Every structure is written in C-alpha cells, then in structure tokens.
C-alpha cells in the first residue's frame, strides 16, 4: 500500500537499503514494476542520491531505509537537504508498534533524532493512514520553502495481512500549514520605487530562485533593469554566468567585483537568499550604505541576520512577475546616467581579474586549470555535483553555469561525501546527460562504496578528483591562521591508488599529472560515454582558494592572493 501510494504520488525512483523493519515494504517492491528501487551501498548515499535527483529535476527525492542504523545513517543526508531546502521524503522502518520504547533490536527514535533537521515528520500509527500521510508528506516537502519530511513506519503497520480499503486522496488540506503565494502589493511597489531610484543597485540572488523555478523571470528582470547581479553558491545558474551583467559568485570566496559592488551599493535586492555568514562577513559592517529589499517565501528568513528595509514574503515567480508589471507602470525610470557611472566603477574592479590563473612551473596542474578544462570539454553544459572543500570553490568559481539545476553542491551543511552519490542521482534522473562529480581525494573517500552501485546500474558518472594529497581547505586555513601547522590534514603516504580502486570496482581509472596532457586525457576520459571514469588529476598541493574574505571585516575586505589583500 505504501508503494502504491508512492506510485500514485508520481514517484518513479526510490533509493534505499533493506533491513528487518522494512522487509514487508521490500516484498511489495519485488512484486511490482512501477516504482524502481536503486540499491545503494550505504544509507547516507541513498539520501544524497535522492537529494541530487531532487536538485537536478525539481521533483522530490525519495529514500527508503530500515530502522536503527539505517535511519541514523540517513541523518547526515537529511540535514544536508534541510540546510539547502531540498524536497525529500525519507521513509524509515521502525520496530513493531508493540516494541517501541523497549530498546528493541535496531530500534531508534527516528522522529526524535531527525526533529531539528526536518520540515516535518510523521509516525504512522495505522495502515489505513498511509495514503493520507504520504500525500501530506509530499505536499509539505514540496511547497513553500521545500525541505525533507520523514515518515517513520513501524513494521506491523506494513504487514500485508492487515488489509484496508485503499483510496489515495486527491488533495490535502492542513489547517496549520499554509503556503505564502503572492507578495504584498504595497511592499512590492515600495521595493520597485526604491529599486528604480537606485544609483548603485545590485541584485543578490540565491538558491530560492532555483528552487522556486524563477530563473527565467529573474533573467528577464535583470536584463530589463540593466543592473549588475551576483549569485550565492547555492544560486549559481539562476542567472547565466557568461552574461556580462553577471559579476560572479559573492561571499567568502566570491569575486572581487561582486563583493566590492555589494559593499558600495546603495540598494541590494536579495531574492531567495538568507544573508548567510559565508556571504555577509561581519554583519555590522555589511553593505553600510545600502537599503535592503528582501524577497523570500519563508518569513523567518527575512531579517534573521540582516534587517530588511522592505521585506516581501512570497514566491519568487509571483513577486518578480509583479515587479516586472510595476516597473512598466512606474513613473520612476532607471537613472541611466548613474547606472553608467556605477558600471564604470564595477568594470574597474573587474579589471583586477581576481580569478586570474597563473600557470605553475614544471608542467604542474593548477586545480583551477582542471576546472577550466572540464568546462571547455563539456561545453559548459554538464551537471556538476561537487563535494566539499577547495575543489568545490574552484568549481563554483571556474565552471560558468548558464542554466539552473546544473550545479549541485552541499552549500549549507557542507557535507563531504555528498558529491559522488548526488552525481549518481543526477545520472539516474537524466541517463543521457553528462553527470560529473568534482571531488577531492578526501571527500571521495567518504562515500566511495557507491562505485559498486554505479556498476550495478551502469551509471557512467565522470569523477574528476582534484587530488592535492591533503584536506586542502583545512590545510589552507592552517597555512593562513595556524602558522602552517598541518594538524591531521595530510595523509599523502596512505592514499589509495584510485586507478586500481576504480578498476577493482569494474570501472576505468585515468591519472593526469601533467598540464600538457590535461586536455587530451580528460577528453579521452569523457569520450568513454557509457563507462564510469575516475579521473585522478594530480594538482598543485600548495594552492589556495582566492579571493578570501578577511574575518572580522566587511565584504570589501579580501585576501586576493598569497601576497595581496584589499
């Protein structure tokens, strides 16, 4: 009945791992062919794969795990999805209702453990409640600010001998849950007037635009205004990165021009962003001369860290539509003269070329060059899932995403081990697309067991490992703040041979260690369209990610290279 409900909800794929408490459900899966189940090798990977699937498609990812350790293994993935507002349904088995609370075998209080990292959760008490709860779970997970929902099901509730009359509800109504739709017209009007009267405006947009399917409208709005725009790490792809109005990513490792433009702006229009500490640097020094206009579907996101001058609660699409309409009607027109001056100033900052790459000597590959090469040979059109660390920042900086849902990374929680299973989920969603996992030798080792899953389901993920033989981001901070004392961030003597590892799992491995061979070898690897290829790119181990925000400063305070700062 559970599987039937999932099918009625439109679910095609679930990611999971069987165990005692979910055996009735697995038997039901065996006896049907409508919902495909993907067997992962660790429950954490099931959640990340479902998460990657959800980020790439916009549809909720569905996970099925057993009680106890199955459920706790899923926790990291649930937290990852929660921090980035990703719609996900996690169905966890539970011991028999009669055993709950008795410390039964593989019993854990999943509803309790997951409480702070879910949008909502359910414990199913009766079999006949299943259809209604599934409907509610999907409704809650996918509407408003999306997020993960846990459904905990005791084993006796899925016992096939407990028959009931099945009817899947068409709609759902919850008296205690409403979804904000349109923004307040008066507020939008006020925001538009301020926006049009601005002398030094900037659009600062994030993951909410992608989740809310607002990219096309955002692009229209930005082009119409002619204003500069910057995206957060989560928002990359919401506005075409190759467009001249795009200043690059902002924040801790944002471009010089994006951060300078933010700092010196007089109006900031934030859409689907949450003024995260990795963006704002010191809150009290944030954009000192700017009026803040903040659009978000979650009222709790507004004025959480930075107080908004004009708060607007609503879906990004409806608010941007209203804005476009009001701009047409408004008597205030964009001050082109001021805007020209503002662009001149921005072009000046742009000339600094803060992402300039200086080639190393002796044919050594700079990690940035590996990403540039990846961008070239995939024509900027791949789905790029990333792990967490330096490689993540390099990918965000150097892969220019022109489309939404192409950049898949754990922005909020920063979960190492996310990238590979996420790339797997993307590949399952789009079997013919190029699904790349940009990773490091540290992150990759956190979920490498999924190489087996990729073999089982023929998933030709391309893994680009920027191998610097160290936990690069940790090492960078130790270089900069701890006098180069590499406390537990290096392990070069104990790294596996990734080529042999890939081969052991039945895949192809390629090592690239010379810049002169980078393009050719990577092209060859990507030409193996139906194989998983692990591309081990040996990169300069001493490289740092720049620009980098200076702690305690404002957005204009950045370290630009090992020798230069603002």
């Amino acid at each position, binding site marked *: 009945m559970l599987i039937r409900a999932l099918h009625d909800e439109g679910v095609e794929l679930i990611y999971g791992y069987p165990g005692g408490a979910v055996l009735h459900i697995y038997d039901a899966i065996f006896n049907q062919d409508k919902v495909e189940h993907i067997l992962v090798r660790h429950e954490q990977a099931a959640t990340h794969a479902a998460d990657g699937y959800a980020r790439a498609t916009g549809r909720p990812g569905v996970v099925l795990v057993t009680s106890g350790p199955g459920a706790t293994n899923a926790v990291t993935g649930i937290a990852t999805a929660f921090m980035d507002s990703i719609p996900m349904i996690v169905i966890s088995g539970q011991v028999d209702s009669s055993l709950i609370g008795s410390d039964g075998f593989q019993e854990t209080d999943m*509803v*309790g453990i997951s*409480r*702070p990292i879910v*949008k*909502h*959760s359910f*414990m199913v008490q009766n079999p006949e409640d299943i259809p209604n709860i599934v409907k509610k779970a999907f409704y*809650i997970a996918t509407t408003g600010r999306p997020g993960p929902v846990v459904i905990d099901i005791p084993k006796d509730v899925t016992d096939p001998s407990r028959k009931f009359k099945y009817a899947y509800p068409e709609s759902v109504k*919850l*008296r*205690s*849950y409403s979804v904000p739709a349109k923004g307040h017209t008066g507020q939008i009007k006020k925001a538009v007037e301020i926006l049009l009267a601005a002398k030094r405006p900037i659009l600062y947009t994030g993951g909410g635009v992608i989740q809310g399917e607002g990219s096309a409208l955002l692009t229209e709005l930005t082009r119409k205004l002619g204003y500069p725009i910057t995206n957060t790490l989560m928002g990359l792809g919401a506005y075409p990165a190759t467009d001249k109005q795009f200043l690059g990513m902002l924040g801790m490792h944002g471009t010089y021009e994006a951060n300078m433009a933010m700092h010196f702006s007089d109006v900031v229009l934030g859409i689907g962003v949450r003024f995260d500490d990795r963006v704002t640097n010191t809150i009290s020094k944030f954009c000192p001369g700017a009026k803040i206009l903040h659009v978000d579907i*979650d*009222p*709790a996101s507004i*004025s*959480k860290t930075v*107080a908004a001058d004009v708060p607007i609660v609503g879906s990004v699409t409806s608010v941007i539509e209203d804005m476009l309409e009001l701009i047409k009607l408004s008597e205030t027109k964009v001050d082109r003269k001021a805007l020209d001056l503002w662009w001149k100033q921005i072009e000046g900052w742009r000339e600094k070329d803060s992402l300039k790459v200086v080639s190393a000597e002796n044919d050594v590959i700079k990690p940035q060059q590996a990403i540039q090469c990846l961008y070239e040979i995939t024509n900027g059109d791949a789905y790029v899932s990333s792990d967490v660390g330096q490689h993540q920042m390099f990918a965000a900086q150097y892969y220019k995403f022109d489309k939404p849902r192409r950049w898949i990374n754990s922005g909020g929680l920063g979960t190492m081990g996310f990238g590979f299973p996420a790339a797997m989920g993307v590949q399952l969603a789009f079997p013919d697309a190029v699904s790349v996992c940009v990773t490091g030798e540290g992150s990759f080792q956190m979920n490498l067991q999924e190489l087996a899953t990729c073999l089982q389901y023929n998933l030709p993920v391309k893994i680009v490992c920027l191998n610097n033989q160290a936990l690069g981001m940790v090492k960078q901070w130790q270089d900069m703040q701890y006098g180069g004392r590499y406390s537990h961030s290096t392990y070069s003597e104990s790294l596996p041979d990734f080529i042999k590892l890939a081969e052991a799992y039945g895949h192809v491995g390629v090592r690239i260690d010379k810049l002169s061979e980078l393009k050719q070898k990577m092209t060859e690897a990507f030409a193996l369209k139906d194989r998983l290829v692990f591309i081990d790119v040996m990169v300069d181990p001493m490289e740092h990610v720049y620009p980098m925000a200076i702690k305690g400063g404002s957005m204009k305070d950045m370290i630009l290279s090992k020798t230069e700062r603002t």
Partner: protein
Amino acid sequence: MRHIISILLENEPGALSRVVGLFSQRNYNIESLTVAPTEDHTLSRLTITTVGDDRKIEQITKHLNKLVDVVKLVDLTEGAHIERELMLIKVKAAGAQRDEVKRTADIFRAQIVDVTSTIYSIQVVGTSAKLDAFLAAISGITILEVARTGVSGVSRGEKVLSV
C-alpha cells in the same frame, strides 16, 4: 523584555517536543511553559514565557509559526491581557509564625489549603510578579516546597485566539 506567547497546537504525539526543541535548537529561553487540551480535544493550548528583544521575539514567533503542528499563536504581551499563575507552597508554620503566615496569606488573597500542626500548604493565584511578591513577603519563614504551574493567559476584551 518578557513576553507571553500563547499557541494553539495540534494535539498530536510529538507536537510539544517540536515546540520545546525549537527553543533549545535556536538558543531561545523558556522561562515557563504550560500546556493542556482545549475545549476542542484536537487542539492543545500552550503558553510560553520567554525573554528577548523585539527582534528575537519576532524570530521566535516566525519559527513557531513555521512548525506544521502550530495552528495559531499570539504574543499576549503585545496588547492588554490577563495572566495567571498558580503556586502551591508548603511552609513551616509553628508558634508565632503561624499567625504571621496566615495574615500574609490573607493580604495576598491566598488560601491555606492544607494544615498540620506545624505546616501550612498555601495556594496563591495571580501574575508571576504577585507570586514572587508573596515569596518575598514570607522570606522570614522556612519554605519547604514550592510548585508553580507557569503562566497561562488570554487577551483582554474581544480579542480571542481560536481557529
């Protein structure tokens, strides 16, 4: 500033833990908490007193509103309101102190609800401030036990919290 937030909550298992968990998770403070079903048994009414500046209280109410089990809430301290708390207090009452405790209780319109030869059990009802004042007034007396219910309240006049 002290705020009294009154919440109508789905009367479902786990609902209370979501509210309480939110406070600890986001580092908010609960000074007191009362909860019981309302006349509609699908709803509980929960009253929390907390302390914070306007911004913090705004965040608290916004986050509470986000909880799926929270149907409606009101910050009673935003308008005129009535708040009540009940305290049961057991004190040593022997010799000369017996009369003094009785007099003080009368002044506070408290009731002595149980008596032994050496002990009074007193019930005091009022605002938290009144209960504090009573405790201060009998500070010379040996207190054996104090049980307070926490604050409950409603808005004055026609304003109501209902679905």
